């Protein structure tokens, strides 16, 4: 029987601002044998921009292991430092 499912198959905490890189695999199975697998990626940062305002990233819809990692590595200081880095806006061509 054909079955399609998704699972997070790779997680990494990256860089000074603890970006959480998430790879989600879409897997097609036939009677228990894997027929195909594709990957999609996204990255979570400690703060999310909404207009000119930054708020703590909402992870309530994330898998439990992702939430646990976020809680462990995203301190207030990390979030503040991330926002400060994103607001520098000093990376211009030729700079």
């Amino acid at each position, binding site marked *: 029987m054909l079955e399609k499912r998704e699972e997070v198959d790779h997680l990494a905490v990256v860089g000074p601002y603890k970006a959480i890189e998430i790879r989600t695999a879409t897997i097609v199975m036939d009677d228990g044998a894997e027929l195909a697998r594709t990957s999609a*990626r996204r990255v979570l940062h400690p703060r999310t921009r909404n*207009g000119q305002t930054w708020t703590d990233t909402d992870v309530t819809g994330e898998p439990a292991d992702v939430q646990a990692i976020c809680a462990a590595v995203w301190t207030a200081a990390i979030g503040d430092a991330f926002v400060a880095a994103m607001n520098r806006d000093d990376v211009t061509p030729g700079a």
Partner: protein
Amino acid sequence: MAATAIDRTPINVTDDSGSGTDGTILDAAWVTAFLDEIDDLFDGTTAAPFRFGGGLAVEVTSGAEVINVDSHGLKFFGATAQADALSDFEVGSWTPNDQSGASPPLTFAAATGRYLKIGYGVWVTFRVHWPTTSDTNQIKIGGLPFTVINAAAVEGGGYLRFTNSNMNGYTFVPYPNATYVVLHDFSGGGITNANQSGDYLDATVYYRVSGSPF
């Protein structure tokens, strides 16, 4: 061929011909079974992967070393530095989103992306279609699949494949420690969401990822 239990006990022999050389030989059945096991590894009969432990590296040589696999990844022709290792290969998809600072964030009319990561470098291709907007924030396309390296301004860049906008030039600047690219025109000014209102663009961007050793 199915795996066969192997008796690894060597056979001790004594040379009685007067040469004075004694030693051990391998039983013919042992050799046959061993070769069968090796054959199984390559024809897929053995379900378990072939693993090396204890920090051992794997080398394939042809006179001189050709390939070396260690904790850094795959290295070629005697290279030893981590920076020279092929550490990863991956392809997949990502979804561009608006990081411009527009409030509320823009919802793109269409946004698709693909990536090809080789070692510490990643190429992303994408198409973004802007909604009709008068927002004047500089365009920042987010959602990149890997975090950009923490490095100076000259790291990475991209090129425009096609757009139906009437803008006269685009540069793409991957932002350090973030997952977005900033768009500029050829004079260094910012391209705004309003500049792309109702239009789309296709582009390719290359950057090095966070954690790169070089």
